[in-house]
């Protein structure tokens, strides 16, 4: 039976986070997931800024999912102005997003959660015994990076997206040059999905409310309506009526709940369970061949959903590049007016909601950003409560690892963390 579990700094999550499980007299008395959450700062920082500054600022909330923060932002701003974009702009945004999903999902599958499932302490120790696996992962990730670079001008914090579209069309030849690597990546993604199903996932079945963006014509990433397994379809503009944020005294971060006060789940499991029938041909085949029975309710198995989704985005990226033939202006002309607009999109970690209130000059009066990790915080803690009896039966180290692994499976993006080195300087 373990004593109190305290992990002050979670490893293999993007940023800073901690975990505390209090145990007294053989019972779990307290569970706390501490996650540093920067969007509150950014909401203040955005006030008074011109609308076209917003995507470049929100991109900086997260080093790993800047495109998500840009896409929810530009779509919310366009909704505030009543503007619409061309099909070409939509498809290029879709491709842009595929690049980010490739990077983020591959990183998570192989480098963040993968080590938990293959008995390795880190990707570094995995690299020591299976260098080809890690090299393959890095090569796959790099393809996503290249897609971002060609479209966004640079791979970290891309700068080309704006409300209305893009500042310029990326070069078609540069995009087409990526196709051989994308095809190789698709092949590897299919192999990875097959490999992943054999991994030793811990047992846990949770009765979730799944929430994700939803479309009838494709596996929703960029846009759509909101679909809840409990509440059905909701317009994205009604998100705040159904999902509320509240301060929890023991945490710095806001926690999200349904109006009934229940935590809900966003992310790969929610998306795959709600939208699997809209997967493209190769991803649908990978799902079928995996033999997975949906709905998946084991949070550890979100890696499997990510693996299927990785096939989806490689396949989609190839199709979108094949079809890419830009004509006309790369951005719609916008007419400024006062108003409020909201939008959701699927960040790699789940639904990312933005709302902006603009004044007549296009300045932000109010910004609201609800990131996926914040929405899942309540769920992470509830899952840990459900897991508690299993944890109590384990030796302390194993219990700690199992709890940490659960949080890593969520791929929490504890954004905007500093990355400085803690350095020991040696005297010569």
């Amino acid at each position, binding site marked *: 039976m373990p004593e109190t579990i305290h992990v002050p700094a979670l490893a*293999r999550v993007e940023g*800073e986070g901690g975990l505390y499980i209090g145990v007294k007299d053989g019972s779990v008395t307290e569970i706390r997931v501490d996650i540093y959450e920067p969007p509150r*700062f950014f909401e203040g920082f955005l006030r008074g800024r011109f609308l076209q500054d917003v995507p470049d600022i929100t991109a*900086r909330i997260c080093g790993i999912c800047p495109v998500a923060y840009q896409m929810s932002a530009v779509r919310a701003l366009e909704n505030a102005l009543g503007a619409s974009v061309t099909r070409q702009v939509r498809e290029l945004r879709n491709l842009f997003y595929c690049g980010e999903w490739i990077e983020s999902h591959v990183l998570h599958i192989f480098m963040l959660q993968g080590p938990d499932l293959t008995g390795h302490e880190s990707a570094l120790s995995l690299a020591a015994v299976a260098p080809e696996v890690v090299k393959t992962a890095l090569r796959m990730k790099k393809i996503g*990076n290249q897609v971002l670079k060609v479209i966004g001008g640079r791979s970290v914090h891309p700068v080309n997206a704006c409300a209305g579209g893009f500042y310029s069309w990326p070069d078609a030849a540069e995009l087409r040059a990526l196709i051989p690597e994308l095809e190789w990546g698709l092949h590897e993604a299919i192999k990875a999905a097959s490999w992943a199903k054999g991994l030793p996932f811990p047992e846990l079945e949770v009765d979730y409310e799944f929430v994700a963006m939803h479309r009838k014509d494709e596996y929703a990433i960029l846009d759509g309506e909101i679909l809840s397994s409990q509440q059905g379809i909701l317009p994205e503009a009604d998100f705040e009526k159904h999902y509320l944020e509240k301060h929890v005294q023991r945490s710095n971060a806001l926690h999200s709940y349904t109006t009934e006060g229940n935590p809900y789940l966003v992310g790969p499991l929610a998306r795959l369970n709600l939208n699997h029938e809209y997967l493209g041909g190769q991803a649908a085949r990978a799902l079928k061949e995996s033999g997975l029975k949906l709905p998946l309710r084991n949070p550890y198995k979100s890696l499997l959903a990510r693996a299927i989704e990785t096939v989806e985005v490689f396949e989609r990226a190839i199709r979108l590049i094949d079809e890419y033939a830009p004509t006309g202006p790369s951005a719609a002309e916008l007419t400024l007016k006062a108003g409020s607009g909201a939008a959701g999109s699927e960040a790699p970690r789940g639904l990312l909601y933005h709302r902006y209130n603009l004044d007549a000059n296009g300045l932000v009066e109010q910004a609201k950003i609800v990131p996926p990790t914040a929405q899942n915080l309540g769920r992470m803690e509830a899952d840990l409560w459900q897991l508690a009896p299993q944890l109590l039966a384990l030796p302390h180290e194993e219990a700690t690892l199992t709890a940490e692994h659960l949080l890593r499976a969520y791929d929490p993006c504890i954004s*905007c963390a500093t990355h*400085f*080195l803690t350095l020991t*300087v*040696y005297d010569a």
Partner: protein
Amino acid sequence: MPKTKLLVIGLGQDLRGDDAAGLEVVKRWQAEYPETAGDPELVVELSPLPGLSLLSFLECAEAAILVDAVQSGARVGTVHVLQREDLAAFGTDARSAHGWGVAETLALGEELYADKLPKRIRLLAIEAGGLELGSQLSVEVQAALPAAAQKLQELVLLLRQPEAGNEAETQQAGVLN
């Protein structure tokens, strides 16, 4: 693909106080030494949170200077010049580190692509004070920028030479107060 002779890369988050030190030193150096900074055989990058993408930058270069904020307990604004080996003592255990920092990324790169990484890597590190979101560069780091930019210039001049510069440069490594 021919390699760039020398990569200079500033790392940091410019919304988090002294975490931006690496970016600011590179910008200062570009402003004060435009001729060197404009050398076509040099690639200069400013990159917040590159994580594992740092490897993609590095594999294109024969030599590299990483400019970053650090916390070592020294006086804020202290400029350290470190060699690759100085980073070996930490960062090999990703459990004790947040995400993918410079040290872990270099360790992974060496495990996988030792032959592709630059043979000569130096870290120009500026001791950071406050790192709160929304804060400005501290007065101490601000005051250290000219000396750090000058140090960067010296390192650039040394490293853009072929291997011959090695010996003199080794002697220069250490802490510049």
